[in-house]
């Protein structure tokens, strides 16, 4: 019983961190631009595919494949922002609708280009580690989890500690006034959307070896990310992490002790509970 319990707990935490990373990109974009990027999951998937193609089909070492994939998604993100999001500034609902349509387009595009099968870049590391003599845990999972923590920390520092972070928040709140402070708002918006997408890409690259990508898997990624967003509070980075952990742990124990069939529903139940108790999310600010 005990070893099982620790196994569930460990797996819950690892999955939680992975979820948090998957949600980080959307959370960032919501936080700084008030735009929900529905196509988040698809960008994640694309990054996975790119790293797969580079490393499996073209034989490029994953040390190079990873940055190339992230960079590509960054550029795609910028293109999306310039072509689709820019005209919608100030109209949150419209950007939501546009990115929703975009996500459907990208899904079907991926289906045509990559086919319906899952694709998996090679593991960075093989084997499994015996955890405290209680159970074995896949090494790749542990390494991906560490990479996720690393990325989360970098993003935190970037947003909380640099001028760039402050600047993007200013732009998100009042474009015109920000430009009166000498900020080139178009550039900042472009970069911050690109950054959010790049984080989605980074998540895709880091997680593809454990969870191979399929064209439709983006939907799940986005859904989990959105649940985390609402639970944690829109745009709050801390909320994103705590929300991810809650979902990871609850899913793990729920699947273990209640039912694996309803695994995905546990997240939703938490969501409803949170909305009852604190409508603006755990870390959300209450709007006036």
């Amino acid at each position, binding site marked *: 019983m005990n070893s099982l319990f620790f196994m569930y707990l460990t797996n819950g935490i690892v999955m939680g961190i992975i979820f948090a990373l998957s949600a980080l990109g959307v959370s960032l974009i919501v936080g700084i631009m008030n735009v929900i990027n529905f196509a988040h999951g698809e960008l994640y998937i694309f990054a996975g595919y790119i790293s797969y193609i580079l490393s499996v089909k073209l034989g490029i070492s994953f040390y190079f494949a990873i940055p190339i994939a992230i960079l590509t998604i960054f550029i795609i993100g910028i293109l999306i922002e310039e072509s689709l999001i820019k005209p919608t500034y100030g109209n949150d609902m419209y950007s939501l609708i546009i990115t929703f349509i975009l996500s459907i387009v990208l899904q079907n595009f991926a289906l045509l280009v990559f086919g319906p099968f899952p694709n998996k870049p090679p593991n960075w590391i093989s084997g499994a580690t015996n955890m405290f003599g209680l159970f074995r845990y896949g090494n790749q999972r542990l390494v991906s989890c560490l990479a996720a923590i690393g990325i989360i920390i970098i993003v935190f520092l970037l947003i909380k500690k640099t001028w760039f972070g*402050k*600047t993007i*928040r200013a732009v998100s709140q009042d474009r015109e006034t920000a430009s009166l*402070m*000498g900020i080139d708002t178009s550039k900042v918006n472009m970069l911050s959307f690109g950054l959010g997408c790049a984080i989605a890409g980074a998540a895709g690259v880091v997680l593809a070896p454990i969870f191979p990508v399929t064209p439709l898997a983006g939907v799940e990624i986005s859904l989990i990310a959105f649940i985390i967003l609402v639970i944690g509070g829109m745009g709050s980075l801390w909320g994103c992490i705590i929300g991810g952990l809650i979902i990871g742990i609850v899913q793990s124990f729920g699947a273990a002790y209640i039912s694996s069939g309803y695994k995905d529903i546990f997240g939703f139940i938490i969501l409803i509970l949170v909305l009852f108790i604190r409508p603006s999310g755990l870390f959300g600010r209450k709007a006036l």
Partner: protein
Amino acid sequence: MLEVQNIDIYRGETQILWDVSFRINQKEIVAILGANGAGKSTLIASILGLLHPVSGKIIFRENDISKISSHAITRMGIACVPEGRHIFQDMTVLENLEIGAYSKRARPSLNKNIKWVFDLFPIMNERKNQLGGTLSGGEQQMLAIGRALMSKPDLLLLDELSLGLAPKITIDLLKTIETLRDENTTILLVEQNVEMALNHCDRSYILETGKISIEGTAQELMSNDHIRKAYMGI
């Protein structure tokens, strides 16, 4: 320092400013006065590059800035207190001030300037970790002024400086402005309180339905009958 030459400004289809020209010299406080809807804020917006003139030029230190985007203009050393304040609602007072010092020339003296603003408005120091959007109306106005000062601008545009400020604060502020001028900042002031503006400016222009109708030194305008009647209710 700044020279506006015969500009025509439109908002959408409607023309707001007709052939407006004026100039501000270095180390001068110039007031633009006029009734509601005369186009004062529009004028400020066009200097800042938020609106571009259809014809005419705006020259700032020998550069034509009439077609440049606003972030580039502000980087040249122009700052403003916009009408309606436009505080960054979800950022703290401190962060608002820091953003004011965004431009490269202002960043080195960031800490010094923050201290200066806090001296000017002690209440800002008390509220420094409060979110901008939750400040009272007058506090927001102080923050907007402080934020503009953070960039140590060469030219400061003030749209409705005294809006919502307690009389005492307004008096202090006007004194500060005069000090600033003496320290080599040029100031363009838009005010409703004509009497007060004239008491503290060097020169003034009157804008009436989109056209400059009268210009002159403060004393000249003070004694102008039309102005006394239409704007000062005397």
